[in-house]
C-alpha cells in the first residue's frame, strides 16, 4: 500500500489534471455524439456508445501511463528513488497498482457520464439495461491491456515520444498483420489471436463472454507485465 501512496503523492502535478481533463472531455464528446445518432436499434446504439466511450479511455489512459513513467526517466526521479533505497520491485508494483486502481476509477466515471448523457437524452431505463457485468469486465480488460502496452513500451524505449508513436500505430499494424495472416494461412484464424483482435472476440453479440479469449487477453497482460519488469530490473539506470 505504501507504494500506492507514493504514486498518489506524485499525481499532484498539473500534467495529471490536463490529461485527465482531456480524457474526460473526449469521452464526454464521444458519448454526446453517440446519444444523438439516429438509429432504429436504440439498445444497439447505446451499447455502441458505451463501448466507444470505454475505448477512448483505454487509448488516452495508455498515453497517461507512458507520460507518468517516462517522466521518472526524464526527470531522473527513478534514479533518486533507487538511491534512497526504493527497490525496483516496489517502484514497479506502485506503478502497476496505480494503473489498475486508475483504470477501475476511470471506467466508473465513464459509466456515470454515460448514464448522465443517456438520462439527458431521455434513455435512462434503456441505458441501465445496457450496463452489464460482462460489458464492464470487457471494458476493464481492454483498458488494462492498453495501459500495460504503454507500460511495456516506456520501459523498453524510455522515450515518451517513441512510445506514444508506437502505441498510436500498434492497432493499425495489428490490423495489417491480421490481413497478412489470413493470406498466408487461408482458412485459419490466427489474426484473431493477436492482442487487440482477441479482445474483440471476448464479448459475443448476445452479451456472453468467450472465456478462451479472456485467457488469451490475460496471457498477453501477464507477458507485458513480466516483460516490463524484466526490462526495469535488469537494465542500468544512468
Amino acid at each position, binding site marked *: 500500500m505504501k507504494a500506492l501512496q507514493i504514486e498518489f*503523492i506524485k499525481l499532484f502535478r498539473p500534467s495529471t489534471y490536463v490529461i485527465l481533463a482531456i480524457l474526460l472531455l473526449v469521452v464526454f464528446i464521444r458519448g454526446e455524439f453517440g446519444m444523438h445518432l439516429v438509429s432504429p436499434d436504440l439498445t444497439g446504439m447505446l451499447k455502441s456508445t458505451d463501448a466507444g466511450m470505454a475505448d477512448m479511455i483505454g487509448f488516452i489512459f495508455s498515453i497517461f501511463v507512458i507520460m507518468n513513467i517516462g517522466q521518472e526517466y526524464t526527470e531522473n526521479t527513478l*534514479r*533518486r528513488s533507487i538511491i534512497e533505497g526504493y527497490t525496483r520491485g516496489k517502484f514497479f508494483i506502485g506503478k502497476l497498482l496505480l494503473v489498475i486502481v486508475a483504470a477501475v476509477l476511470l471506467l466508473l466515471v465513464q459509466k456515470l457520464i454515460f448514464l448522465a448523457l443517456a438520462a439527458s437524452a431521455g434513455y435512462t431505463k434503456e441505458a441501465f439495461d445496457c450496463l452489464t457485468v460482462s460489458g464492464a469486465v470487457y471494458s476493464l480488460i481492454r483498458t488494462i491491456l492498453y495501459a500495460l502496452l504503454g507500460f511495456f513500451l516506456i520501459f523498453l524505449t524510455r522515450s515518451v515520444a517513441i512510445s506514444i508513436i508506437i502505441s498510436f500505430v500498434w492497432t493499425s499494424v495489428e490490423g495489417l498483420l491480421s490481413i497478412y495472416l489470413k493470406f498466408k494461412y487461408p482458412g485459419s484464424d490466427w489474426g484473431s489471436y493477436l492482442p487487440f483482435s482477441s479482445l474483440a472476440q471476448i464479448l459475443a453479440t448476445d452479451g456472453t463472454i468467450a472465456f478462451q479469449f479472456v485467457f488469451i487477453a490475460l496471457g498477453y497482460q501477464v507477458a507485458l507485465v513480466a516483460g516490463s519488469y524484466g526490462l526495469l530490473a535488469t537494465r542500468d539506470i544512468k
Partner: protein
Amino acid sequence: MDAVIQVNGLSKLFGGVAAVNNISFTVNKGQVFGLLGPNGSGKTTTLSMILTLLKPSSGTITLFGSHDLLAGLKRTGVLLESANYYPELSARNNMLISCKIKNVDSSKIEPALKQVDLWNDAGKKIKNFSLGMKQRLSVASALLSDPELLIFDEPTNGLDPHGIADTRQIIKDLSAQGKTILIASHLLNEMEKVCTHIALLKNGNIIDSGELQLLIKGYESLEDYFLRKTRKQS
C-alpha cells in the same frame, strides 16, 4: 576498524570499454573518504554501482558488511551533483516521498527543512527553486533518516562561494558527529579541507590511495600531489 564500504575487484564495462577497471578500496567508520580523479576517471560510475544504479560487470560491494546494498542504502544519505526532484511537486511533497521510501515519520520533515532554512519555502514547487535551494533540500533529504553513511557526488558543483562554504561546513559537522562520508569530486582544494583518506582514480584505475596527510607528505598541496601523480601516470 569497522568497514562501512568494501569494494573488491570492481569493474564496469560499457560496450567492451572499461569505465572502472578492477578497483578495490575500503571506507572505514568515521572516515571522510575522497574519490579523486579528473573527469571521466570513473568516480561517478563507481558511486553509481555502490548506489545500485549500475550493475557491476565483475567484483563485489558490501555496505555495512552486507551484500544487500538496498538495505544498506536505507542507512545512507545521498547527495548528488544534480538534485533529481519532482519539479511540479512542492518541497514538502518531495520530502514526503523520501520519508515513505526511507520509512521515516513525516513529522521529521519540518525540523529537516528548518535546519537548511527552507521551511518557509516548503509549499513552493521545486521548479521554482534555485540551484542552491535544491542543494540545501538535498542535504535535508539526505539527513532525514539520521544516516550512518553519507555519499556525496560533486556536492559543490555549480554552487556560489556561500553555497560551497555551507556544504563544506555541513561535511565537517557530519564528520565531527562520527558519520562516515564518501565524496567523489575533482575540486582538490575542497577535498583537501575535508577528507581524511583518498583514492586517486585515473582511466578507471586506482593509482594511489591511503591517508591524505601521509600521501601528500613531501608535496606542496593535494593539488600538487594530484597533478604530479596523474601526469606521471600519463
